[in-house]
């Protein structure tokens, strides 16, 4: 097994709605009890000029994320990616995902493993 990371999760956080599907999909897939799991969704409320605010949700892969190796080996998407209600997560080789980041802003690339 190679130690250098190959794959990642690209998050288009412009569209993440904070639905928490990724969290439960992961818990189900890997049998995590409540409170544990490979991904956690964060809420960020940012103040802007003129007393305006912006609301962002951002899923964050935790120490427990294994990038759904057993699924991806079979050609399936990770559980979170498949079920993501906003279709804002992509799994793939890091280089490919990094190239995708040029297509639009408000993206983040996680390489959890």
């Amino acid at each position, binding site marked *: 097994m190679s130690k250098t990371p190959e794959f990642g999760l690209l998050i288009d956080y412009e569209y993440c709605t904070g*639905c928490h*599907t990724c969290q439960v999909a992961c818990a189900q897939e890997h049998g995590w009890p409540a409170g544990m799991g490979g991904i956690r969704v964060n809420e960020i409320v940012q103040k802007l000029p003129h007393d305006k605010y912006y609301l*962002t949700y951002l899923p964050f892969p935790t120490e427990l994320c294994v990038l759904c190796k057993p699924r991806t080996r079979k050609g399936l998407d990770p559980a979170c990616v*498949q079920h993501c209600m906003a279709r804002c997560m992509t799994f793939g080789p890091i280089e490919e995902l990094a190239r995708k980041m040029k297509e639009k802003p408000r993206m983040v690339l996680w390489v959890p493993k």
Partner: protein
Amino acid sequence: MKASQTGIFKTTTWSPGPGCHGGCGVLAHIKDGKLVKIEGDPDHPMNQGRLCARALAMTQYIDHPDRLRSPVKRVGKRGEGKWEEISWDEALDLIEAKMKKIREDYGPESMVFNVGTGRDIYAWISLLAYAYGSPNIMFGLTGQACYGPRLAAVITVQGDFAVFDAAQWFPERFAHPGYKVPECMIIWGYNIHATCPDNLFGHWIIDLMKKGTKIICIDPRLSWFASRSKYHLRLRPGSDSALVMGFLNVIISEDLHDKQFLENWTNGAHLVRKDTGKLLREKDLVKDGAEGNFAAWDPNRGKAVVWDTTEVAFRDKEVKPAISGEWEVGLHDGRKVLCRTVWDVFREEVGRYPLSEVEKITGVPAKDIHDAAVFYAKAKPAAIHWGVAVDMTPALTPLVTGITALWGLTGNLDIPGGNVFARFAFDVVPYALPGTKGAIRLKSKELDEPRIGSKKFMPLNKFYWRCQTDMTLDQIFTEDPYPIKGMWIQTAGIMQGLGMDPKKWKAALEKLDFVVAVDVFHTPTTQYADVVLPAGTFLEKDSFRSWWVPLQTINKVMTVEGCRPDVEINFELARRFDPDFKFDTVHDLYDDILKPSGMTFEELQAKGGRAYPPDGSSSCPYLRHERGLLRADKKPGFRTQTGRFELYSTLREEWDLEPIPHHEEPPFTPVSRPDLAKDYPLILSTGRRSPAFFHTEHRNIPWLRDIDPDPTAEIHPLTAGRNGIGNGEWIWIENWMGRARYKAKLTPVVPEWMVMAAHGWWFPEKKAAEPSLYGMWESNINQLIPMNEQGKDGMGAPIKHSMCRVYKCKPEEVNHE
């Protein structure tokens, strides 16, 4: 022995389970008869492989240790939480005997059948109630203030309901050749993506945004949509109707309305008498003329001409009526009266709302209202979608008909990417929403006579087949005009969620002779039942749905020992109550209801469990009013009294209610009650949706509770600061009715003047017995919301806007459990 295999089965979501209004395709992984995993079905056009947190948590739901697995009979006092398990036979025999006794002694109307929101069981509770002979099916919310009123209001003026178009009518979805992505979408008081209400997949709107749809978000909160909107109109709760009048004002005064639609499809040209303020009818013009026919002014002939509602045409063909003007019209009795057009009357009302005034009422800057209205009116196509905020106000009909006028007058009705008619797939109607007649009906009109509220409130009388909730609650106490002796409560949380002023509901339940509850888990409500029956989830039943498109089967993929699907429970009892009951099996019943589709249940299942109505049928868009696809007589037009889209509601006029949209200030706002505002300076709103829960459900599902562990109240940091409240601290929200305890979430997503309290809270982990009642008195915000404030038409209620103050709990009042 070979290790057992996991089978993967397709079915469709609905309640019980995720709680939503359902429709997603799922793959259930079953091993040794147990659900080991559930996933979204990638081949299903609705969700395309995606799935919400609640459906994904089904393994924790279906095998939950607290799940009811046997009928139980109450052995202690109501509320004592003492139960004895009994067999299904014993339970059904007992229920049959008790309910038959009530029917004999007091008549079938003395049993009320209570149901919660959007359940699979509306059809099956009708089956039971109607077989028993009772017309009193009750949706337990004050003013029935969720969805039904909105439908009823739209149907009053438009004949059919309409929803935003995300190409859900076609199996190929967005690839459908005629489809267009809306350029603009108004999201009115809706956090749709959190829970998928109203049989829509909430994230379709996100799909549309990715394809370029720009959002106008009308919401006091900074919702996710608001953050990403082109215009966020942050209105004061309860002022929505003023805002819609402002929109109409901009659109009409800047001449942005669709003249073709106005002249060809609305009743804008019909005449209104100046002396009575009522529509001119044929009976005014001609002796023995029809009450149901109307009139318009023909400028060529220089006289009033009759609009024949049976022909959906002018009596004299080739009339091009005047849309604006004032004329003297001769009546058959020789009098002459001045008349003007509906359009002029409509415009005059709209003219009463200059933007400066609307800004004052709503708190939204006039310029933003103007720019948003212009953007909506110029966008082609544009769609509107609305949440329950529009129902949760007493004057919901003037508001809803105003919004309906918006999509009509901008030419966005039943066009690709606009607001398109929502009809039951293939016109299969198991579940009679307002405006439709279901396949399951009462045996006679006489049995419908005693339906509570049907004499007083005309929408209920005409096409809304429920009893009026507030009147029903009162009648339990007054027994006037007849006593209510029993209640059948099926998957409804009257105590912990649906019921406002829950103390009153508790007293009502305690007064009844016999109460049955059917549910998946014990809840605060089941504590007041005499018998509780354990229901099966959507995975445990065969059923189907036609709300709206496609027509789909729900397929039984497993059973849970001891539990029975709602439909099977009701079917069995219906058979016992109705000597003429004509079905042998549940599938016979399904086949009968499915007849208009030309398929039996098994045939539909064999087709993959899904069928889309073809072009040319009434449940397939577009422009159905032009193509004669809406009306039974196949004439072009709408299913309204006039056959037209009614800017002026003929029904409302007949019911002595205002026929035209307008603003009415709700009963408990700082504007209507400045006296109360001194003590209760904050606007209390409730019902913000959480993706973890559907209303009162799912607090006992560990994965979901982890997402949203406590009852939270959103408070602006400045407001919290002024009241000495820190983030995460426990507070009381209080008004003249009572108080409830919440965990403060300090966040600028709410305005400084508002508190948003989560609804539906109880604590399944706490004691069932009174006084705890699963802790339901602690954080139930409904204790601050009254009953009996429904609108003039019996619909709508002030749920989204009350008033309150907030203060910190004392240390000993904080919940340490």
